[in-house]
């Protein structure tokens, strides 16, 4: 299992592709099969599968197999991890900022 910081960086990177963002939006409306997703985009089915794999590895989507079909849906865990990563980043960054600002203030008391 990858550490959370790695997993969420992967989620942010996966979000960098516009086709994948559109896929997430469609999946946000309702779960879909690979075939249904392929119909919605002007790209090949293997290309759709490839994007889905990136999204799944980033923890943003997951799939269930029903018979011969794979049905994809949003996996909210990935978005939660990305948000936690950003949240942790700002806590760390602002603590450093505060320390620097207070210690370099002209005529700093305390």
């Amino acid at each position, binding site marked *: 299992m990858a550490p959370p910081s790695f997993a969420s960086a992967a989620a*942010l990177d996966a979000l960098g592709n516009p086709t994948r963002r559109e896929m997430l*939006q469609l999946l946000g409306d309702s779960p879909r099969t690979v075939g249904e997703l392929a119909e919605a985009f002007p790209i090949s089915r293997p290309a759709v599968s490839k994007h889905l794999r990136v999204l799944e590895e980033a923890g943003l989507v997951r799939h269930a197999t029903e018979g011969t079909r794979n049905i994809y849906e949003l996996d909210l865990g990935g978005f939660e991890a990305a948000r936690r990563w950003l949240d942790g980043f700002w*806590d760390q960054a602002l603590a450093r900022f505060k320390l620097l600002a207070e210690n370099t203030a002209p005529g700093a008391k305390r």
Partner: protein
Amino acid sequence: MNPLEKRIHVRCDLAHAFEVFTARIDLWWPPSHRKLENSEMQIEPFVGGRFYERDASGQEHVMGEVRAWEAPARICYSWRPGSPAAPTEVEVRFWGDDTRDNEGTWVHVTHRPGPTGDEEVYGERVALFERAWTHVLASYADRIAADESA
């Protein structure tokens, strides 16, 4: 809805807080959240300016673009957190503390998905991304609410 918000109080005046946040960003931006090793980070102080890092060999990595520059009260810039990650928008507001001990400065960070200055690149896809983000956060909030009531 639901942007990430952070507020912090610093014991220094408004002008100094703004200056440290912007001109001295290289000194406080965590080294763990940079793309280049031993890089120097800079925000160019004008609308359209770059938010970027540069390493000793001169290699540069642009992380965003300045959208608003209203010294010393407010700045706004786009930021791609993660290598080719989707653009997000950071707004930072500064104001003098007149509520507590009447000294110091409040710094308020709002980090939200888009809009960004990359409309020419992403066009309506940025709007799609925004809607997706909103939708996902709404689903997430619903799930939390469901968990809590369960």
